[in-house]
């Protein structure tokens, strides 16, 4: 018997990330444990950065694509992994000045493990693999959410996240087992083939709904969103950034993969003149609930992080509109939207973290006069908020525009226009609460004797970079769209 290691080759980027995760632990234990915190965070952070960058370089160079029953490596999956690694890298840098825990090595190791889970999730072609990857992603995130032991909110958030997450995972697992029982398959392609030939039994729809619940939880679509506000508010700031950005991008991609590849034959219909059972009506209901619920709840928030959480729920609802587009536009619209959204919300939460650090809270009052106290942070927040509100020429505007156009064009006779109308209306309402934040920043004078707010360079640099990207992708969306259609065309998705 010869020992072959060939199977490890396609997964080298994931392996790099895992190895560096272990390296971060080892460096911490062996070398820097007794040094002062600044040095310790920087050394271990540099190790984590090296892991992300190494994996990115490998992905950029490797061209061995292929698909097996379990895994798919295509230009598309590799492109999304690059985006995810980029987001993770920003989170790693943002964490450099965090001082909420003494367990630096464990912190970065868990962060990298969660990143590895994300990458695996992107490549999985098999429901069981998808489930495993989801757990590899989720378990570190539960722990990381609880990492700030000085705050009760952190523990509470983690507990909620864990309880909701595990129930949702149970639903998904049950759905998968039902599917397996009916079709005898776990691969997405094989399931689709069976569904196409077999008569569709009612229990099939039960399986569909249960599987989707797990993902609705992951993307924080209403009514499975209850964990989100607490996690955004309670988790350490960089972890909230990670949950809101990278985790969301990956979850949406996998959701798209499952419903198109796996459940393609039972799509049903959600057009106003053609309502049929399938995943389309389920997603349409989730979208409406998320857009309406998220936006209305956000109107009443006084904490900016909670406001961003509810706005994230609403944005999840907008993103679901992409699923009603036609085959050619659906994925570019979805991916453009979630990637630019991830950049924006990552930046906004990072600013919120910086403000929270200096003002002991992120209540609206803590933002008063930020335009005076920290001009650069304020300008960046201005850009992020307006992009989330969908004001041109920022990335969020074009992302929404493309989503809405794709959804309207996706079904014959403007079938999905009703959902577009809901989305456009919801989006108009949302300007109200984004402007509330901006009003605090620019229109309300700073409290008497307020000191200028100094954010560390490790926070300022990524935030400014993200703001610049939001402008660039808004003014010239052609580059990202071109990349997306190029990788899509060569991936035969």
């Amino acid at each position, binding site marked *: 018997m010869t020992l072959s290691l060939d199977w490890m080759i396609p997964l080298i980027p994931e392996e790099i990330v895992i190895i560096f995760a272990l390296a971060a632990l080892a460096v911490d234990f062996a070398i820097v444990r007794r040094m002062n915190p600044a040095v310790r965070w920087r050394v271990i952070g540099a190790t984590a950065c090296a892991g992300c960058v190494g994996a990115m370089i490998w992905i950029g160079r490797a061209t061995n694509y292929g698909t097996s029953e379990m895994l798919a490596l295509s230009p598309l999956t590799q492109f999304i992994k690059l985006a995810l690694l980029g987001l993770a890298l920003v989170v790693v840098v943002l964490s450099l000045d965090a001082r909420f825990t003494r367990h630096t090595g464990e912190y970065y190791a868990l962060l990298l493990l969660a990143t590895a889970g994300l990458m695996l999730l992107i490549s999985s072609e098999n429901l069981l693999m998808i489930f495993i990857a989801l757990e590899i992603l989720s378990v570190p995130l539960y722990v990381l959410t609880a990492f700030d032991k000085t705050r009760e909110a952190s523990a509470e958030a983690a507990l909620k996240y864990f309880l909701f997450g595990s129930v949702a995972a149970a639903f998904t697992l049950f759905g998968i087992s039902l599917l397996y029982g009916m079709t005898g398959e776990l691969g997405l392609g094989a399931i689709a083939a069976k569904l196409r030939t077999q008569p569709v039994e009612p229990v099939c729809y039960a399986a569909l709904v249960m599987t989707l619940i797990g993902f609705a939880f992951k993307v924080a679509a209403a009514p499975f969103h209850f964990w989100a506000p607490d996690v955004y508010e309670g988790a350490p700031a960089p972890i909230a950034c990670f949950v809101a950005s990278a985790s969301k991008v990956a979850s949406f991609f996998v959701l798209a993969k499952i419903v198109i590849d796996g459940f393609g034959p039972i799509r049903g219909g959600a057009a106003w003149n053609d309502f049929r059972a399938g995943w389309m009506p389920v997603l349409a209901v989730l979208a409406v609930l998320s857009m309406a619920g998220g936006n209305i709840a956000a109107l009443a928030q006084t904490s900016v992080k909670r406001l961003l959480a509810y706005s994230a729920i609403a944005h999840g609802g907008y993103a679901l509109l992409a699923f009603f587009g036609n085959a050619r536009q659906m994925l570019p619209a979805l991916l453009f939207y979630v990637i630019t959204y991830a950049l924006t919300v990552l930046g906004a939460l990072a600013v919120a973290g910086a403000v929270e650090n200096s003002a002991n809270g992120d209540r609206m009052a803590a933002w008063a006069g930020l335009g005076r106290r920290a001009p650069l942070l304020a300008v960046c927040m201005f850009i992020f908020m307006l992009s989330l509100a969908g004001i041109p020429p920022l990335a969020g505007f074009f992302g929404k525009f493309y989503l809405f156009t794709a959804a309207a064009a996706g079904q014959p006779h403007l079938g999905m226009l009703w959902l*577009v109308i809901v989305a456009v*209306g919801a989006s*108009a309402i949302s300007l109200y609460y984004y402007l509330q934040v901006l009003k605090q920043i620019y229109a309300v004078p700073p409290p008497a004797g307020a000191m200028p707010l100094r954010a560390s360079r490790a926070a300022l640099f990524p935030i400014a970079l993200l703001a610049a990207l939001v402008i660039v992708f808004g003014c010239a969306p052609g580059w990202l*769209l071109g990349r997306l259609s190029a990788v899509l065309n060569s991936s035969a998705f």
Partner: protein
Amino acid sequence: MLAWTILISFLGAAALVLLPAESRRAARHTALLTALAGLACALAGAVQYERSAASGTPVDLVNFSWIADLHIHFHLAADGVSITLVLLTGIAAVAGVLFSWNIERRTREFFALYLALIGSVYGVFLSFDLFLLFVFYELAIIPKYFLIAVWGSTRREYGAMKLALYSLVGSAMVLVGLIAAYVVSGAQTFDLTELAKYHFPAAFQHWAFPLVFVGFAILAGLWPFHTWAPTGHVAAPTAGSMLLAGVVMKLGAYGALRVAMTLFPEGLRAWQNEIALLAVIGIVYGATVALVQRDLKFVIGYSSVSHMGFVLLGLMTLSKIGLSGAVLQMFSHGIIAGLLFAVVGRMVYDRAHTRDLTELQPMNLSALAPFAAVTFVIAGAASMGLPGFSGFIAELQVLAGAWQVFPRLTLLAGVGILVGIAFMVRVWIKAFFAEGDIKASAIPIEPISMPERAGALVLLGTTVLIGLWPGLLLNLITPTLNSTLFQGMVKGGPQ
């Protein structure tokens, strides 16, 4: 030449952002220079257009592929209608800077937002790609909000938010209509002239037209969606109200004409009477409410609703005389409303610190500030529509056009004019010419400054010039209304 107006304004705004925060003088001069440069470009462009294209067809300024996947082009072009409004924007921008000379708080930011707003307005008037037009249209919302929320007066946060939300709801309606039109026409182009050639199904036009038209007309103060206008105008700083009434309301009317009416001529036929009725209700209602206001700014705010009603009524006549009256009325009202707000906000309120007519009554302003009083009387006469001023020609054309189509409504609109004269006379008497108890010398009042005089003369000169020589603008407007783009609309279908 005309495309430079947009670029110059945004560059001016960017330059202001980079100035040091304390340099108020430099900020003012930069803003004035930028506005003047914009006006110069607009004038040069207008002359160039009139010499080269007598046929009134649109002339391309810039056209390149912007977002290829969706067939979106960065397409700027101009015809007589857009040039008229670009000229208005240029003049209003210069006057607005002159009347904001006394802004001392966060001067640099004020003018940066001001120029950003001006740049977006130029952009809307010159865009011939619907996506681009919509981008500029939405871009204008944010500066408006901050100009009012930071530098405004009475209930400024409420007024600012109300304006922002009304604008956004209007543009949401427009967006739905645009996306639907794009999809129905085969998702091949957002180009205005191309889409105008496409024959949209009648059933589609019947719901798309009111959606897009009302979406735009909210910003033009169409009754009953006008309620943002009085509160917004009152809350805004002087230059803000001047721009709101002067050019922002025209964005709405322009969009209604340029997009809703040209794309959906059959829908327009179907809804013509209903919208004309709303326009006339606006004329009469605005004038009547203005008659009983105590706050001087509210008087002018409601009078704007009334005068914009003439624009919408003129649009609904679909006759050449009515349409050219509507476009001329956009220009004329922009100048006159700007002037009235300048007198009320800058010359009166900044000195007397009140706009309440009962409090102004004893002050005897005509003796305290004769320049303000004279300016206001002339502007009021122009606003009433007396001959010799631009408003006369415009409203006369609108009424002549409307008489042929809606005789009864035209009579009602005539009543609106009479009420308009009444409220203006009431304001003259109460605010300026009441016999006051207080001696003129009792209140020290700062004299009217040079920039104010210059701004007032620019606006007064314009309205008199157009009043005496309307051909200057009608030579631009009439050929354009005869061009194929608008003829399809008048005849009820694409050529």
